[in-house]
């Protein structure tokens, strides 16, 4: 269930939604409210995914120079070649 919210909409977005809804994949005549609702839903998901991705990359970079990992993988990889796994 959706709740109504009163939020400021940037002028250029408001104009674009009113004049060119097809730019957002909506046919003419669709209410601005339903376009904003979709924008908020998609935007919320995108912001969350963006934050999660940023955190994920920070985590990877914290381990990227881990020589222990590199050496351990070298050892398992060497065995995989010897055993014909690769």
């Amino acid at each position, binding site marked *: 269930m959706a709740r109504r919210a009163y939020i400021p909409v940037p002028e250029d977005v408001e104009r674009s939604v009113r004049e060119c809804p097809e730019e957002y994949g909506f046919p003419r005549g669709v209410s601005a409210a339903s376009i904003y609702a979709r924008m908020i839903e998609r935007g919320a998901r995108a912001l969350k995914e963006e934050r999660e*991705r940023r*955190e*994920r*990359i*920070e*985590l*990877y*970079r*914290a*381990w*990227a120079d*881990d020589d*222990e*990992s*590199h*050496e*351990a*993988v*070298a*050892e*398992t*990889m060497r*065995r*995989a*070649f010897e*055993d*014909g*796994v*690769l």
Partner: protein
Amino acid sequence: MAIQRGVVYSIAGASPRTFGAVVLTNDDWNENMREVGVVPLYLEEPGLPAPAVHFTARRGLWAVPGRLVAVHKEVLEAGLMDLPEGAMNSIEDALRDLLALPRLCSEFPMAPESCYSKSDYPRWSEIYYAGEPVGDERKRYVVVSHNLWNSTSQGAIAVRTTSQQRRYGAEYPAIQGGVARACCAQATQIPTRAFTLSVYRRPPVRSLSLRDMSSIARGIVQSHQLQAALERRSGAVAHE
């Protein structure tokens, strides 16, 4: 060379019956790290217990998801092709089931089904030393593949654990109450003979809790991008 998930690469120094390997680790990982997770593709049917995925892409190929291997990026040579979506899905689904991800990633995690075998083999959730010493220490691995596979395939998929206190997160979950981390993205197949199975030569902490195993399973889902495979399983269960 940018390494991409879902692309098949030839492998420098591979055996003549190996066609190449398909990359499974996610592209953020592939871009930032020095190692990637791959599943080898063979030109002949491997003599291993199921699951082996057979498909045709230019030629008949076999993939064995239980042979997931972590490799240095340098050994990947030319990109040979994008793996067809159907084959990729089959590999992901087989790996999902080998690692018991649906049970472990559920709201109320459960261990994989038990398996009776007289033989000695590396067991799910148990920690072992494996391989030759690296520097002056032997590496510890926790077994993450289910015991039916471990007892029949002469190997097991395992994740290295480390006492390094670097940052933790999904792909490097804090385990053992926070004193160690699991390197989920480096999940790799290790032959049974490379594990030190003797109870007298095991690490002080011999197994992980179900909670830790669930954290590792979730880490592998992230690192090897298996969310869609989990969703396919949920969808299939809902239809049953």
